């Protein structure tokens, strides 16, 4: 009989992999370091998801319920993997609670860490209470409290969303595009305009990367239906005159310096590699990408392969990723994991 598949991480990818395996009768063990399943969308309190428009607590909550209801998924909450030894088909994992378990293969669905805006002090986060992150605005919306200035609870009349905070920035070693923030910001801008129609929302961008169908559904729609304004400028600094925030930069399309007052500034924060990746790399013996994500081994053969046979990876653990694609990758990795656990391997792509 095939040994259970070890799944590390209880976010969208981990939940999707567990469900996929359960749906074909394959047992798995789901190890989640926190006490809550659902990953970033649940733990960070996201509002409406792209592209479904469903509330995160309903969409991802449904995935959690589906996994929680079945008996083929052994849930280990508040636990981490301390050691992982053996070969495909016969791994042994030791958990932080002291338990040991056998696994035929492992799927790392360990996700990402939100960029900490304190690392860009010139943009005022941590200095001015009305400088917030996209995650905080998501929480304002999902909690039902609405978008308000944290300093005094007033409704902001003018909101600036700064893109690429913690992305595409060599100064802080973030040489990647976090992929989802343009779309998330356009989505948030529309949600702000929906709640506060009198509020003007400006998005400060270097490029707009609402890839694929997000172009018309988010970028165009936010401009055409919600009158969100896009200004091509990378902001130099966010300060305050004591009453309002002052955003300074250069409007590159008119070649003019700008010093514009705002009530609220939102950092569209990027997706960092999971802060635990060095540990994960050491425990599972997998290589990391040079930017710190878990390295993918084989793009065209074994879906989700890492540098170690029998250890697969899916979702934002390999780099900035959408929820949809994380789920798709998890399903693919589940198939690869099952093959590895049964002693077979999916063929590498022919060279």
């Amino acid at each position, binding site marked *: 009989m095939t040994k259970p598949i070890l799944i590390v991480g209880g976010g969208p990818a981990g939940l999707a992999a567990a469900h996929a395996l359960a749906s074909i009768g394959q047992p798995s063990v789901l190890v989640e370091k926190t006490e809550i399943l659902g990953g970033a969308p649940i733990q960070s309190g996201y509002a409406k998801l792209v592209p479904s428009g469903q509330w995160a607590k309903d969409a991802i909550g449904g995935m959690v319920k589906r996994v929680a209801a079945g008996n083929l998924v052994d849930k280990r909450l508040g636990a981490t993997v301390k050691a992982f030894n053996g070969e495909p088909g016969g791994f042994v994992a030791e958990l932080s609670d002291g338990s040991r378990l056998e696994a035929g293969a492992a799927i790392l669905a360990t996700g990402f860490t939100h960029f900490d805006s304190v690392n860009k002090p010139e943009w005022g986060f941590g200095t001015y209470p009305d400088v917030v992150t996209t995650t905080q605005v998501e929480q304002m919306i999902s909690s039902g409290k609405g978008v308000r200035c944290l300093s005094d609870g007033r409704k902001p009349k003018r909101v600036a969303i700064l893109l690429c905070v913690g992305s595409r920035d060599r100064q802080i070693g973030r040489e990647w595009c976090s992929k989802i923030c343009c779309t998330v910001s356009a989505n948030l801008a529309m949600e702000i305009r929906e709640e506060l129609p009198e509020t003007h929302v400006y998005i400060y961008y270097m490029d707009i990367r609402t890839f694929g169908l997000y172009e018309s559904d988010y970028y165009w729609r936010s401009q055409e239906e919600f009158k969100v304004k896009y200004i091509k400028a990378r902001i130099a600094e966010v300060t305050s005159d004591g009453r309002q925030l002052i955003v300074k930069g250069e409007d590159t399309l008119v070649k*003019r310096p*700008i010093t514009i007052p705002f009530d609220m500034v939102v950092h569209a924060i990027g997706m960092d590699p999971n802060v635990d990746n060095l540990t994960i790399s050491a425990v599972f013996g997998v290589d990391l990408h040079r930017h710190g994500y878990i390295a993918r081994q084989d793009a065209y053969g074994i879906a989700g392969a890492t540098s170690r046979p029998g250890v697969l990876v899916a979702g934002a653990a390999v780099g900035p990723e959408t929820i949809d694609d994380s789920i798709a990758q998890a399903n693919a990795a589940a198939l690869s994991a099952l093959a590895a656990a049964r002693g077979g391997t999916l063929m590498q792509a022919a060279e």
Partner: protein
Amino acid sequence: MPIHEKSLIRPENLKTHDNLVIDGINVSGHWSTFIEPRVVTDYNESLEDEIAALPGAENIHRCWQCGSCTNSCTINAIEPRFNPRYWIYLIRVGMESELLRDKDIIWQCVSCNKCTYACPRDVMPEGVMKATAHWLELKGYTPKSPAMHFDEEFTEQVVKRGRIEDTEVLRGFFRRTGQPLLQDWLVEVGWRVAKKLPVLWGIKMALAQVFRPRTRGWRRAQAAIEEYIHEQENERREALGLIGATAANDNADVRKPEAAE
């Protein structure tokens, strides 16, 4: 300062003093040129709404600044300052004082509509140019040009009578533009015509000045045309909240653009 950088700065922002001493240091002459910064300090958020309320500019908010309009523009090819992409941006963002700097260029659009067909987002830049020109006029930012005075005199006569009287058009034009009727060249023309004057033609012309004939059955056409013109005019005024204000038809009404911030 390198010469090429100086050319980027508007001349009025370059300050030199013939005789200036600050804290005992002589900063006279062009070796001590000061540059006044011209920072944008706020957005006028009603600018886009105002112009978008005028016919033709309804889609202005769709613009994403690709520059297809400017690239395809007939006028831009011969007048590089004519830049629809740039003006659409100023309007969208609300940089009114910047827009007003170009008020004497914007009307030069010839409505070839190449931009209309080049625009990937259906912004209809030609319509925006037209609307912006109307906006400048309705807000009193631009004086009427001589050509416009002529057009108005001409149109008024056509609307009233379905025809024009050359002499009267000319007289009206001079009156509207504050010019004397007895211009040297006109006197000369008069003399030369008088020398070989067909008397009957002269009498006809003189009678036309008195009786002001109308095209047959013109009254109904006049009423319809006038109604349409008023409707259009009111629609635009209403869009800008100018209802009740009298038509700005004197140069004296021209508002000065606000000083740069």
